[in-house]
């Protein structure tokens, strides 16, 4: 019996190793998108589940009702378009700040002595191992009107009234940069650490000052790292929900938050599905480019 199982495994080893994860991903990763796509064309209803089926059977005729109303609704109500633009804008601004903070850190680590390099890298990765939710929560305590920053500034007599920082887009930028910074630093570091120091010495020897060396040698050579890091921050930031929900205000428009509200608060599953399809379309484009860039 076990011998038979064993020989079956031997013979079809290759097939099994491919098929098992493949089938799992087809069912639980690819199929769900088709379901979302389907439901985005149905009509919301007070039912369980809260939408009407696409097909019905009436007088011997098969009726397929494609309700384009959800997408029409997304176009008509400016809220959705605005939140889409706002999401991309917030993700883009945060990516730029993450790059500005992450680049010097990655460069610093790459130029550290080998022994210290691993410790510094560990320090970059470490926050990632502690709860993301709790790290975002920490910023509430820091940014709110009775938070660490305001208390300190008032105690030092610099301000009289607390600054409003929490529940603003500023807080959202901070939250995104903070949580995604390791994703920016790691690919940058991987790229910069491979850069041969002799190239910098060669540039200096040929008369380039440090700033010129940076602009003409280091920056162009680290471009793949910059692109990889930026993608790893930008793409997930677009669909972020937790950060705008906890740190943003009521007027912080982000598509992830809209989707959540449609789904949980308005219980409008078809519209939420339509929002998901639009978000997916926005993600897929840079994703495909990213994959192609990685080769």
């Amino acid at each position, binding site marked *: 019996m076990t011998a038979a199982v*064993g020989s079956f495994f031997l013979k079809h*080893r*290759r097939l099994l*190793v*491919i098929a*098992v*994860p493949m089938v*799992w*991903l087809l*069912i*639980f*990763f*690819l*199929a*769900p998108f088709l*379901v*979302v796509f389907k*439901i985005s064309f149905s009509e919301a209803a007070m039912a369980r*589940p809260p939408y009407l089926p696409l097909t019905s059977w009436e007088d011997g005729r098969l009726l397929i009702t494609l309700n384009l109303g959800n997408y029409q609704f997304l176009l008509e109500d400016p809220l959705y378009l605005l939140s889409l633009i706002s999401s991309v804008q917030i993700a883009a601004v945060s990516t730029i700040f993450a790059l500005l*903070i*992450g680049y*010097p850190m990655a460069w*610093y680590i790459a*130029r550290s002595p080998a022994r210290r390099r691993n410790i510094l890298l*560990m*320090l970059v990765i470490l*926050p990632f*191992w*502690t*709860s993301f*939710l*709790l*790290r975002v929560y*920490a*910023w*509430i*305590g820091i940014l*709110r009107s009775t*938070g*660490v920053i305001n*208390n300190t500034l008032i105690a030092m007599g610099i301000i009289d009234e607390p600054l409003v920082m929490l529940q603003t887009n500023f807080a959202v930028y901070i939250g995104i940069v*903070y949580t995604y*910074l390791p994703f920016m630093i790691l690919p940058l570091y991987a790229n910069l650490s491979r850069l041969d*120091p002799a190239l910098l*010495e060669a540039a200096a020897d040929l008369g380039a000052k440090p700033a010129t060396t940076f602009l003409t040698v280091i920056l162009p050579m680290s471009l793949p790292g910059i692109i990889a890091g930026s993608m790893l921050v930008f793409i997930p930031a677009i*669909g*972020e*929900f*937790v950060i705008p*929900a*906890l740190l943003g205000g009521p007027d912080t428009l982000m598509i992830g938050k809209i*989707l*959540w509200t449609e*789904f949980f608060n308005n219980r409008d*599953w078809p519209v939420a599905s339509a929002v*998901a399809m639009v978000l997916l379309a926005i*993600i897929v484009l840079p*994703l495909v480019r*990213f*994959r192609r860039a990685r080769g």
Partner: protein
Amino acid sequence: MKRSPLLSIMALIGFIFLYAPILSLVVYSFNESRLVTVWSGFSTKWYGELLRDPQILGAAWISLKVAVASATISLVLGTMASLALVRYGRFRFRELFSGMTTAPLVMPDVITGISLLLLFVTMESLFGWPAGRGLLTIIIAHTTFCMAYVAVVVETRLINVDRSVEEAAADLGAKPLRIFFDVTLPSIAPALVSGWLLAFTLSLDDLVIASFVAGPGSTTLPMLIFSKVRLGVSPDVNALATILIGLVAIGIAISAFVMTRNGRSSESGA
């Protein structure tokens, strides 16, 4: 190439930015006052309160079960996926397969969450399975996105495994399954450990996907924290955060200790 002092200062600011919030969580977890950020004296009372809260303990237990299960399943599936990608060259639908194993890495949680929920609802109405939502659906959802991380981690290691070592085992009389357990598995073992830990952490940390696919009675720890935090800061969450940070720190210390000890033993012989 010497590093300029400006660069060092910028890097220092970066590290402060990374660690200041975590430090503030820990500090204020020992604050007497309910107002979290107004210091009124040292106290460990929030820890006591935390450990007496059945809601938190229940949610933590659920999260732990989910994390262990999905980390383990995703380790098996992710390792198989990486073996297929690294070892089996071309096969049909390879592009689709590799796309599906990496896409979950950047897929926004809201999309993964809503699409899996709608799948579960549809499947239930078609086949009656999975009946309702709860632990099982969370584990399936977490496995799906965690296996992508496992696949990436194991793949990186697998690419660097010297094929000739496996060929040597074959040449010395080991059959494929034996080769896998004798040679391949030990060489990728560190990646398997970190892949499992990564999946475990991600599962333990997930709020959004779990919120979509959880049912009544399967509230995970992040879901509970989120509902508490939404109402404002709460000192027992700080205490909880400190405990989690402490656990991570201990884990890191142990792995660092093991790593340096292994490193030293191999240095001493050379």
